[in-house]
């Protein structure tokens, strides 16, 4: 979705407090996938996991990390995962549901698709000429 819409919108991923660290609510799927990390107690620990993640997936989206004050997480009630769209005027255009069950990238896609810019004027006049 990022590749498809990066010409139309800006994307920023914010790396927050771990959802299923192995010292809290560990998940079997994480054990199987070798994603075993304790909940970071320092910023360096969180930064290291964020970098691991970015490297493992060659993550293309811009990625920033929430500080240990969890300021972004708290402001957006983000944990464990959530999507928002902010309009250029600084208001919340879309507020996604709480993850994982209500984390719906397809809703973001629909929002972006509904606002996809129409064909550029040069293209339109070329079509008309034909």
């Amino acid at each position: 979705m990022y590749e498809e819409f990066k010409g139309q919108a800006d994307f920023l991923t914010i790396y927050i407090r771990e959802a299923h660290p192995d010292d809290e609510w560990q998940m079997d799927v994480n054990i199987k996938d070798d994603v075993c990390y304790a909940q970071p107690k320092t910023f360096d620990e969180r930064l290291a996991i964020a970098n691991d993640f970015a490297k493992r997936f060659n993550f293309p989206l811009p990625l920033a990390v929430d500080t240990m004050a969890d300021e972004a997480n708290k402001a957006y009630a983000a944990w464990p995962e959530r999507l928002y769209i902010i309009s250029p005027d600084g208001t919340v255009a879309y507020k996604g549901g709480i993850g994982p069950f209500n984390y719906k990238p397809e809703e973001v896609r629909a929002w972006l698709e509904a606002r996809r810019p129409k064909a550029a004027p040069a293209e339109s006049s070329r079509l008309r000429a034909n």
Partner: protein
Amino acid sequence: MIGAISVAVLLLAGFGVAVYLAGSPRDAYGMLRYAVWQMSSGEVQAGDRAPDAEVMALDGTTRFRLRERLGERPLVLVFGSYT
């Protein structure tokens, strides 16, 4: 006596519901102990001014505020973690 038994039954029933929702006793415990208190619908609503927050770039030294990334285009914010 009856009161204490009733409370115990209610707590067990509640835990049973959690097991059903989460899929296993271990997951029910995890959900109740760690997840429930962290999840929130959140105060900010669509149409509200988007909150600002200071975050750090992956280099570990560059700080910036979320709203600095807001330009002429919509900004999609994706929140999550590796685990």
